[in-house]
């Protein structure tokens, strides 16, 4: 049963990744759609992590006790001022796991 679940999940994930890379699929993207799609990465990534950082048990969790929020603010500051991905992730995770 687990293998069937894994197989079907893999199929769904792969199809969603591959679908629009297929040239036989009749889809022409104009300048406007391409501009719209250029916002995909920041929009999607934000929508994945914002709830993780800001919501706990279906309520807004704006508190200094919220380690995810404090850690995320530290990561934002590091990313903004250093512009260094590796430093941002290593230092913010270090602070999150060993200090907070």
């Amino acid at each position, binding site marked *: 049963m687990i293998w*069937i679940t*894994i197989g*079907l999940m893999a199929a769904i994930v792969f199809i969603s990744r*591959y679908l629009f890379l297929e040239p036989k699929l009749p889809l022409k993207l104009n300048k406007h759609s391409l501009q719209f799609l250029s916002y995909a990465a920041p929009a999607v990534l934000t*929508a994945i992590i914002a709830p993780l950082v800001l*919501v706990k048990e279906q309520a807004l969790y704006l508190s200094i006790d919220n380690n995810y929020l404090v850690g995320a603010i530290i990561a934002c500051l590091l990313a903004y001022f250093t512009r260094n991905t590796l430093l941002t*992730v290593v230092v913010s995770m270090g602070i999150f*796991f060993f200090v907070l």
Partner: protein
Amino acid sequence: MQAEEQFKSKFKEKSKTQSKQKSFWQGVIAMLPLSIAVIPWGILAGSYAIEVGLTSLESQGMSMIVFAGAAQLVALGMIKSGIGLTSILLTTLLITSRHLLYGMALRKDVSSLPLKWRLSLGFLLTDELFAIVTTSKDHLFNRWYALGGGLSFYVFWNIATLLGIIAGQSIPNMENWGLDFAIASTFIAIIIPMVKAKSILVCVLVSLVSSVVCRIYNIEIGLLISALIGMACGTLYARMTGESV
């Protein structure tokens, strides 16, 4: 004369191979911070799979075949709570639907490549790969760069899963350690440098508010809705202000 021609073409061939290799390794290096950052998240995927009751082989197989962190973790949570296959698959579809947007955005560069390239890059198309490909320095798509980034990320993800499987067998409840903070930290490190124009800031803020509201009201399709609203607001803002990105 012929010898000279031959030499020339050989030289050309060689420099072509070198530039392929060079691009491949540039991809590996561009991905390296994200590959390192995915280690805690991979450890979580491996240890949680063991916690849920999967065998080591199934746990590793999931990371090798599905290769989608968020979908894997959510599915594992559902397996643990005894939720049925149909619900698991529908949830997977919702979480993974964002990749349709990535595919569309990369269509102009990838759809003209040979099948083996489309299949490989399609399989490797994670959030992280999309991020490094769309923010690469010269903004020109290079298949070898993408392959280097994608493949090295795949290797890190699977080694991290293996570490999680090993650790998960002796350490219980690793899912409460907050290893998922890794994903927040990683994505923040990707998003902040992307905010180079006001319209992108608008897009991020709208997507943030919308996804939080959706989570509070338990709207399962929140991820996709919020991403689309954020993208729409960013585009509208850019058009209205005549901003050129």
